[in-house]
């Protein structure tokens, strides 16, 4: 698992979602990338029933990069507890429906083509929330390197060369707090969750 950076690609007036994806695909292919299938990251959110007291939220995410894993992030007050489990965790959530209920309209996913260029892995995801297009998320993973601190400059160079000046010079806030840690799959999930949260906020849900 290499360091991964997630970047929102700004939407312009004259382009639809699929057009944006196509535009980016052309660019990355021109750089020498090869498409290697599709990817999908989805997120479903469960809320605790009022009887349980303080509201707690469980986000359950799946990443096609780790297809046998289920990632769960529990938000309880200011505390955030991540959990990685295998696929049957979804079954357990079904058992808990009386205590944690799923908010179907907030089901959000990022889906699109996946490319490989050298040691980089690039994913162009169009974000949809309950079938509504929300925006484009570009995920870039530099697989040989596991420490965000040493890979950031290199990745910034790659990102800027690919999607231009949208990319800030500073690393994303989430990575800045973990510059010298070993990068984990959960970190990618947390970044997705952050961006999904932003998309939801703009819609006004949650």
């Amino acid at each position, binding site marked *: 698992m290499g360091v991964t950076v997630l970047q929102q690609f700004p939407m312009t007036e004259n382009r639809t979602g699929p057009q944006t994806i196509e535009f980016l695909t052309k660019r990355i292919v021109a750089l020498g990338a090869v498409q290697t299938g599709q990817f999908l990251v989805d997120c479903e959110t469960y809320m605790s029933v009022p009887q349980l007291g303080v509201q707690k939220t469980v986000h359950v995410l799946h990443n096609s990069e780790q297809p046998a894993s289920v990632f769960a992030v529990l938000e309880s007050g200011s505390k955030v507890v991540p959990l990685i489990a295998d696929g049957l965790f979804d079954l357990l959530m079904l058992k808990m429906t009386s205590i944690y209920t799923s908010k179907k309209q907030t089901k959000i996913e990022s889906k699109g083509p996946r490319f490989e*260029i050298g*040691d980089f892995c690039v994913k162009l995801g169009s974000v949809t929330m309950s079938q509504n297009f929300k925006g484009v998320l570009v995920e870039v993973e530099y697989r*040989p*390197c*596991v420490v965000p601190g040493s890979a950031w400059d290199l990745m910034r*160079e*790659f990102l800027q060369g690919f999607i231009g000046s949208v990319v800030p010079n500073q690393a994303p806030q989430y990575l800045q707090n973990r510059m010298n840690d070993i990068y984990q799959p959960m970190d990618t999930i947390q970044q997705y969750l952050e961006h999904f949260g932003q998309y939801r906020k703009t819609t006004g849900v949650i």
Partner: protein
Amino acid sequence: MEQLQTALTAIKVLRSSVGQVFDSLGSGLRAEHGDENKETKYLLELQELLTTVNVNLRDVEQAVSSLNPPPGPFNLASTAYLSQETTQERQALYGTLVNSYKWTDKVHEYSNVAQALLSQNSLKRSYTNSNRTKRGRIQTSSHNVSPQQVDSLISTFDRQFNDMTVSVSRPFASNAVLHVTLGHVLKAVIAFKGLMIERVVVTGYGETMDLWTESRHKVFRKVTENAHAAMLHFYSPALPELAVRSFMTWFHSLINLFSEPCKRCGLHLHSALPPTWRDFRTLEPYHQECKP
């Protein structure tokens, strides 16, 4: 072989002519000599025969002189007594003795060929000393060193760089295999032969290490290539410790593999690869394409 053959025939001819001389001497005077001057006739005949013997003798001497002198008697040492062995089971020893002799002969032959080949090898990775004048000096062989010596050298690397951890294992007899972890950047397996580096494989931090599988990341495959180049570059048979030490110093410079831009173009990436080349002298990072 032919000469030997002619010599043998010459000896045969000589023997038959000598035989004729004795034959005529044995039978004495015969009827064919007639009555008159039979003594003179007989003497003439003898004289004739002796000249033939003389001629033949000369032939033999000639043939023998053209032969190579045999290389002295074979010294079979105690194996000579094998022929006198009486016990059944030991009589078979001779066969195996001959076999082992043949093998020794082959080994001798092959080592000669190998020596010839190695003396032509320009890289001189293996230490050969065909020069007779240097024979007197104490040879510093780089691949026949005691494990303790190797261990002590390796432990100095461990102490030398605090962001590099080194562990030794010896899966193949006494030859050390080093597992090096360089920060959180990369890992490497270095196989030694004595004090000589035989093979380097560089893999990513999260990958499994072994001596034969390459990294699945392009960048580390490239680094492995460059490490091989460095290994050959630093090789010096006379000062093996220095060679290893300079290789390790060079290797340690890979710690900034991802974070340092190329000295030449000032960029991180060139065809999706970071600067994988480190200058041997200055240890400065360059892209493969930018290297001086």
